[in-house]
């Protein structure tokens, strides 16, 4: 899969990238929301992993953009523990899954695999 990762924390971004590459995915990395919004249009990814709290454009804006497209792109949002209300908002906008930080790379890998197999989690 071609996966777009939007995360403003460089260490976490690189860690996620390394793991997904190891799983055989192609990755597009974005260090903020604005870059992510631009690259979604340019690169047409199969899946988006986006942090909720980012400079310039939030994860919520990214969910919105991914769902406004003709062919919707599935989005997994990353959130800190105390941001639960925002996670609900992300789901209302159409987010497909979420992972709470800090998370294990195994968890990330397994959740991504479900999208690759065409089994997105059912949250509606």
């Amino acid at each position, binding site marked *: 899969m071609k996966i777009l990762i939007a995360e403003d*924390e460089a*260490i*976490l971004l*690189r860690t996620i990238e*390394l*793991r997904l590459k190891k799983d055989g995915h192609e990755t597009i990395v974005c260090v903020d929301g604005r870059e992510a919004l631009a690259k979604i249009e340019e690169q047409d990814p199969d899946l988006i992993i986006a942090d909720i709290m980012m400079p310039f454009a939030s994860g919520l804006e990214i969910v919105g953009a991914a769902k406004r497209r003709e062919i919707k792109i599935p989005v997994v949002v990353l959130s*800190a523990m105390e941001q639960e209300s925002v996670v609900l908002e992300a789901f209302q906008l159409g987010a497909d899954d979420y992972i709470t930080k800090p998370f294990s790379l195994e968890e*990330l890998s397994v959740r991504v695999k479900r999208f690759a197999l065409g089994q997105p989690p059912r949250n509606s």
Partner: protein
Amino acid sequence: MHLLKDPDHIAVVSLLSGKKCLVAENNEVDQSLITLLLHEAGMIADVVGDGYEAVERLKAGPVYDIILIDLQMPVMDGYAAAVRIRDELQLNTPILAMTETTPEEEQYNCIVAGIQDCISKPFDLNDLYRRMARLLSKPYDLSRLDGLNDRGALTEIVNLFLTRTPKTVQEMLAEAEKQDWEKVHRYAHQLKSSTGVIGAQELVELLRRIEEQATYQKDAGTMGRLLRRFCSVFTRVETLLKQEIQ
């Protein structure tokens, strides 16, 4: 009292064995019970009767691997003693608190005072051993990165952490100096992600409190204490990580 040869238990006890513990406890029955439990794990235990005596003992020079302290004591309670141990004596010795209330209630004040963990009394001995072993192990956990399955990638992430994080810490401290709490919050939030990657639990916990302080109470004194504690734990994490990747 004798435990099964469960491998987890063996690993825990081998971490504790030979370690020196200062126990601050005013109840004599508890004093004997705790001493017995520590001896059972092969530890050396010195007992004092309150927080003041604990501080005086530490001032006199003996070095301990861990401090076990009751929160509710006459003369000087566990919190006040912890604050003096961290601020005045500048000791980084791990502290495990014991309480007759629920540990969740005490957790916030514990973190602010520089106490890493809290256990409720009466305690289960396995729980006590496990918590002490955790405090005696490294202040981070790279097993979160096992999923990379690659030594080179692991080294890259640790190096990235070591080069980038000190800068963010400096920026957070500079903003705290100016009492710009919104920016402090932003840096603390960012640091929470990166310290989470290397599994530095105490740092993550401290950052969570710093974020809370920056959003709600905005008390400069408490913030100062949290930041000082953060810096001293961070320095320790940094030193150990550098050794790890050499």
